[in-house]
């Protein structure tokens, strides 16, 4: 006699995204389902394997029956949910958000080691940003090359905090954090001292690999040479989770 099937502790729900009928585990978020099904949703702060912060707001989507937009990264699926990911309004909002990011710091792609491999650049292309309508802030930011292997260029930082999270959640060093608030926010190592002087950094380089732009890069790379490898993250995250 066959044993009774074990009670599944996670249910499966069906939902509709951009008119497609899809199924998902009820503990999944909208962005995970979209990625599985190759539905493109832009995002900067979200990354598989890291905790969710909901900061970049690029993954906002429309959910029928809700009068507010929701962030796909921090919204769980639900039975019967109907989602629109790419309306004209959402496209307009995303374009404005990308413009806001470009105007905030000093992103000069032509001299960036990440040119051609930069998530912000891709976003600008996919969202159709051909110029920035608002004034650039033109605030001066420093470049810290004190670390023997890596460099941080705050001019290119979008404050997605992937570096902060990977350092804390995966490496366990918590060398990075964010200081200040509002427009004064900045990623820092230890007590905002030069990275090279850090007593906690293990030089593992995970922060560099997860950084979406040319803010965190390897020393010695030239324009366009900095290609990032993020394969390690889901693997490490899964192993950590299983432990």
């Amino acid at each position, binding site marked *: 006699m066959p044993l009774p099937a074990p009670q599944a502790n996670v249910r499966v729900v069906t939902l509709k995204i951009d008119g497609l009928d899809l199924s998902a585990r009820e503990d999944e978020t909208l962005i995970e389902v979209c990625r599985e099904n190759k539905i493109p949703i832009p995002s900067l702060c979200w990354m598989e394997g890291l905790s969710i912060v909901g900061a970049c707001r690029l993954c906002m989507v429309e959910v029928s029956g809700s009068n507010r937009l929701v962030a796909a990264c921090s919204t769980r699926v639900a039975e019967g949910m109907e989602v629109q990911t790419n309306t004209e309004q959402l496209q307009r909002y995303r374009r404005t958000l990308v413009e806001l990011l470009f105007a905030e710091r000093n992103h000069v792609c032509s001299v960036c080691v990440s040119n051609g491999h930069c998530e912000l650049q891709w976003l600008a292309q996919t969202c159709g940003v051909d110029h920035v309508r608002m004034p650039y802030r033109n605030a001066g930011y420093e470049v810290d090359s004190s670390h023997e292997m890596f460099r941080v260029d705050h001019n290119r930082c979008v404050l997605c905090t992937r570096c902060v999270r990977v350092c*804390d959640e995966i490496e366990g*060093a*918590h*060398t*990075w*954090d*964010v*200081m*200040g*608030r509002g427009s004064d926010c900045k990623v*820092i*190592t*230890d*007590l*905002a001292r030069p990275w090279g002087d850090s*007593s*906690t950094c293990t030089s593992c380089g995970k922060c560099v690999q997860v950084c979406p732009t040319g803010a965190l890069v390897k020393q010695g790379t030239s324009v366009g040479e900095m290609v990032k490898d993020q394969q390690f993250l889901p693997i490490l995250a899964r192993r950590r989770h299983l432990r």
Partner: protein
Amino acid sequence: MQRQRPDLPSADKRWKLVNATMRRNGYAEHALIEALHSVQDAFGYLDEEAMTFVADSLDLPLSKVYGVATFYHLFALKPKGRHACVVCTGTACYIKGAGALIEGIEQRFGVAPGETTADKALSVMSARCVGACGLAPAVVLDGTVIGKLGTEQLVARLEQEIAE
């Protein structure tokens, strides 16, 4: 894996006050803001030595302590002047001329909110509503709220305090 708590940075008795605050909270992570308050109460500002001591005592990353210390505007990372003048910039005070007070102080003493005069006599700060809207425009001078002052009166009062 119990981590050894650090020794007090020096024989200065004020460290005992800071340590007592953390002990009262069981050296828990959530005591961080309370601990920073007690450092600021005792020393007037937070320097690297104090932040390192608090981080080590509560077993927190240095960057986290720095991140928290710079997030909250009441925490100062530099020593303040002998006198502290906080100009309220709440709506009622704004309507009734807080901007003129700030300009007046800047003209006379050359310091904007957030700055301290070179002779360390006066620190000027701004606050988001001290809740004394009935006395607008209000300033808090060395902990005392004074209200309904014109720019000239305020500057005169500050000069007098500094001279004393």
